[in-house]
C-alpha cells in the first residue's frame, strides 16, 4: 500500500500501525475513527461556517445600504416638504405686501381686515405690522400693544433691507410665546427706501407641520438653527430652545455616511448640505441626518433608529444560526455514524485479511516446519537406535549374569530407559510421518463406513470416560474417491482429541451430509470446554498442544491439516468457550486435478 503523506498520517494514523497487542489495535481503530470524524466535520463545518458568516455580513451590509438609501430619500422628501411649506408662507406675505398697498395697509381697519383673512387661512399668524422706510412702525394689528416702535438698529431690519425677505429663528421675546418672524421689504411708493411688512407666526404652526411630516419619515424630525438650537420641539431628543440631546454624544462611527454618499455623486449634488452620522443613544444606534433648508435659517434634522439591530435583523440572525446549528448537528451525527461504519468495515476487512494470511501461511509453515522436524527426527533417530541397542546389550548381559547387589533396581532403571526410548521413537516416527510425502492411494470410499470404523476403534476408550458418541449420517451420501488410510487418520485424530478435550462425561456427534455434487461435509462436534480464539488460531500449528507435557506431540492436528489439504479438502474449526468445539471437514467427491500433482 502506498505510504500516506506525513500530515495526513499524523491526523489519521492507520489503525494497524504500532500494534503490540489487541488492546492497542482497538485503540488504533478508535483514534482512526476519531481522526476521520474530525477531518470530515472540519471539512463540512468550515465551509458552512464561512458561508454563514459571509452571508451574515453581506446581509448586514445590504440592510445598511438599504437603510441609508431610505434615509436619504426620506430626508430629501422631508426637506422638500418643509421648504415648500416655508416658501408658501413667504409667498403669501410677499403677495400681501405688494408695493402699492403700503398706504392701504397703514389704515388700521384695512390691516385688520387683511390679517383676519390671513388668519382664516393660517391660524398661526400672531400679529402683523407695517414699518416705514425709516424703520418706524407705522401700523400694527395683533394682541399686543406694540405701536410706535423703531427697528432701525435691529439686525433683522438690516437683513430684510439687504435681502428682501427675512425669516427669523424661533424665539420667545416679549410675547413670551415661541414664535418666528417673516419680514418682507418693498420699495416705498413715495419716499426713498423700502417699507417692510412683518408678520409674527406662532412657532406651533411650524411645529405642527414638522410633526405631521415627521411621522411618515422618521422616528424624530425637527429643525435647528445655525447654532444648533432647537427650533421645533423634538418628540424625544431634546427640548425647544435647547440643543438636541444627541448633540454632545460622540459619533459612534467615525466613518460618516458622507463617504458612501460621495460615491454616489448624484445624491451629493442634489443635496449638498446633507450629512448623515451614526450615533449611539441609550444603547440604540441611530442615524442622525441633517440637511439645510433653502431660504431659511434652519437645518432639518431627521433621526431614525437603525433597524439593523431591530426585529428584521434579529430574525435573520436567529434563522441563520438555526440553519447553521441544524446543519451542523445533522452533519456531526451523520459523520459520526459514517466514521463508525467505515471503521467497522475496515476492522472487518483487516480481520478477514489477517485470517486469510494465517490460512495462507499455514501450508508453508507446515512444509518448512515439517522439513525441520524431519531433519531433527532423522538426526535424533540414529543416536536413539544406539541407546536402544546399548541398553539392550546391557540388559542381555544382566540376564546372563548371576545375582549381584542392586540387580533388580538396575534392571528397572534399564527398563525405564527402554520405555523412554520407545516414547522418543514414537515422536520421531510421527515427525517423520508428518514430513513424508506418501502417495495418495485413491479408491472409492463410503465415508459413513469409515466414520463408523473409527468410532468402533475408539468406542472402548469413550465408554470408559462416560462419553456418548452419536451419529447423524446422511444415508444418501455419495461415495468419494480418496485415501482410506489417511481419512481414517484424520477422523481418528479429531475424534481422539474430542475425547481428550471432554475428559469425562460428555457427548460427541459425528455427522455427514452432501454439500453439492462436488463435495461432502463431515462434522465432528463435542460438548467439551471449547477453545479461546487464540488457541483456535494456533491449533493447526505443528508442536502446538494444550495437553500435558508428554501426552501430546502437538502434531495430530497439523498432520490432519496437511492430509486434508493433500486430499483437496478444507477444515474449519468453530469453538465457543463452555459450549464445545466443532470441526467442519469438507472433502471433494472426486480428487481435484490440481491436488493430484502434489
Amino acid at each position, binding site marked *: 500500500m502506498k505510504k500516506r503523506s506525513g500530515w495526513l498520517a499524523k491526523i489519521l494514523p492507520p489503525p494497524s500501525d504500532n500494534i503490540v497487542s489487541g488492546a492497542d489495535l482497538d485503540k488504533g481503530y478508535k483514534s482512526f475513527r476519531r481522526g476521520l470524524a474530525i477531518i470530515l466535520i472540519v471539512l463540512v463545518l468550515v465551509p458552512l461556517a464561512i458561508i454563514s458568516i459571509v452571508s451574515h455580513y453581506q446581509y448586514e451590509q445590504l440592510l445598511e445600504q438599504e437603510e441609508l438609501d431610505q434615509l436619504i430619500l426620506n430626508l430629501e422628501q422631508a426637506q422638500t416638504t418643509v421648504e415648500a411649506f416655508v416658501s408658501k408662507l413667504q409667498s403669501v406675505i410677499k403677495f400681501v405686501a405688494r408695493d402699492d398697498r403700503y398706504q392701504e395697509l397703514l389704515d388700521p381697519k384695512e390691516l385688520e381686515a387683511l390679517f383676519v383673512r390671513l388668519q382664516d387661512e393660517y391660524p398661526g399668524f400672531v400679529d402683523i405690522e407695517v414699518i416705514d422706510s425709516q424703520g418706524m412702525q407705522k401700523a400694527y394689528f395683533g394682541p399686543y400693544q406694540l405701536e410706535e416702535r423703531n427697528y432701525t438698529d435691529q439686525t433683522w431690519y438690516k437683513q430684510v433691507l439687504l435681502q428682501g425677505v427675512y425669516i427669523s429663528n424661533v424665539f420667545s421675546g416679549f410675547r413670551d410665546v415661541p414664535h418666528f418672524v417673516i419680514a418682507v421689504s418693498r420699495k416705498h411708493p413715495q419716499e426713498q427706501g423700502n417699507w417692510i411688512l412683518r408678520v409674527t407666526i406662532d412657532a406651533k404652526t411650524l411645529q405642527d407641520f414638522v410633526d405631521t411630516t415627521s411621522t411618515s419619515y422618521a422616528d424624530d424630525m425637527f429643525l435647528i438653527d445655525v447654532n444648533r438650537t432647537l427650533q421645533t420641539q423634538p418628540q424625544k431628543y431634546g427640548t425647544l430652545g435647547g440643543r438636541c440631546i444627541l448633540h454632545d454624544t460622540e459619533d459612534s462611527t467615525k466613518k460618516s455616511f458622507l463617504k458612501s454618499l460621495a460615491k454616489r455623486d448624484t445624491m451629493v449634488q442634489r443635496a449638498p448640505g446633507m450629512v448623515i452620522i451614526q450615533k449611539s443613544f441609550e444603547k440604540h444606534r441611530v442615524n442622525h441626518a441633517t440637511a439645510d433648508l433653502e431660504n431659511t435659517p434652519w437645518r432639518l434634522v431627521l433621526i431614525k433608529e437603525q433597524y439593523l439591530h431591530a426585529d428584521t435583523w434579529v430574525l435573520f440572525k436567529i434563522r441563520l444560526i438555526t440553519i447553521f446549528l441544524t446543519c451542523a448537528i445533522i452533519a456531526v451525527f451523520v459523520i459520526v455514524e459514517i466514521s463508525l461504519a467505515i471503521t467497522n468495515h475496515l476492522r472487518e476487512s483487516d480481520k478477514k485479511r489477517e485470517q486469510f494470511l494465517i490460512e495462507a501461511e499455514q501450508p508453508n509453515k507446515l512444509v518448512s516446519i515439517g522439513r525441520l522436524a524431519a531433519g531433527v527426527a532423522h538426526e535424533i533417530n540414529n543416536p536413539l537406535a544406539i541407546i536402544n*541397542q*546399548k541398553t539392550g546389550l546391557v540388559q542381555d548381559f544382566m540376564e546372563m549374569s548371576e545375582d549381584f547387589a542392586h540387580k533388580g533396581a538396575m534392571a528397572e532403571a534399564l527398563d525405564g530407559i527402554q520405555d523412554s526410548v520407545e516414547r522418543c521413537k514414537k515422536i520421531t516416527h510421527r515427525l*517423520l510421518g508428518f*514430513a*513424508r510425502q506418501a502417495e495418495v492411494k485413491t479408491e472409492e470410499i463410503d465415508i459413513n463406513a469409515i466414520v463408523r470404523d473409527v468410532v468402533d476403534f475408539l468406542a472402548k476408550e469413550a465408554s470408559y470416560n462416560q462419553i456418548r458418541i452419536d451419529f447423524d449420517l446422511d444415508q444418501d451420501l455419495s461415495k468419494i474417491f480418496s485415501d482410506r488410510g489417511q481419512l481414517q487418520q484424520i477422523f481418528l485424530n479429531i475424534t481422539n482429541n474430542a475425547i481428550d478435550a471432554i475428559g469425562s462425561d460428555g457427548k460427541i456427534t459425528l455427522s455427514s451430509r452432501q454439500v453439492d455434487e462436488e463435495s461432502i461435509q463431515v462434522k465432528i462436534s463435542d460438548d467439551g470446554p471449547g477453545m479461546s480464539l487464540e488457541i483456535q488460531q494456533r491449533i493447526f500449528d505443528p508442536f502446538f498442544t494444550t495437553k500435558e507435557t508428554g501426552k501430546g506431540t502437538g502434531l495430530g492436528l497439523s498432520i490432519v491439516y496437511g492430509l486434508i489439504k493433500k486430499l483437496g479438502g478444507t477444515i474449519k474449526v468453530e469453538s465457543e468457550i463452555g459450549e464445545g468445539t466443532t470441526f467442519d471437514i469438507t472433502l471433494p467427491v472426486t480428487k481435484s486435478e490440481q491436488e493430484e500433482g502434489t
Partner: protein
Amino acid sequence: MKKIKLLIIDDEVEFAATLCQRLKLRGIDASDVHSGGEGLAVLTEESPEIVILDLKMPDMSGLDVLAEIKTYDPSIEVIMLTGHGSAGSGIEAMEKGALDYIMKPIDLKELLEKIELADEKRSKA
C-alpha cells in the same frame, strides 16, 4: 543347529557393533562393517546368508548396495534398516529384492523374527 551367518552393513559404528554383539549373544554368527563399499568387499570373504543393510550411508545408497548383493548372490536375504518413518523406501527396497525392512530404533525381537523368517526362506530354497 548351524549358526546363521549374518553381516551388518551400517555406517553408524556403535549401532552396528552393539547389534552385532547382541546377535552373537543369541547364537548368530554376526559381523559388522561400516560402509557400503566395505560390505561389498567382504561379501566373498564372509559369504553371509543374511545381510542387514542400512538404507542411508555416506558412500553409497543402501538400494545400490542391495542391487550389488543381489547380483553377486541372489540367495542372500537382505533386511533393510530404515530411519524413515515412512514405509515408502522400505517398500521400494522390497520391490528391489529385499526380504523385509525394519525401522530404527529397532525392536530386537522383531528383528529376530525377521531373521528367522529369512533363514526359513533360505532353507526352503
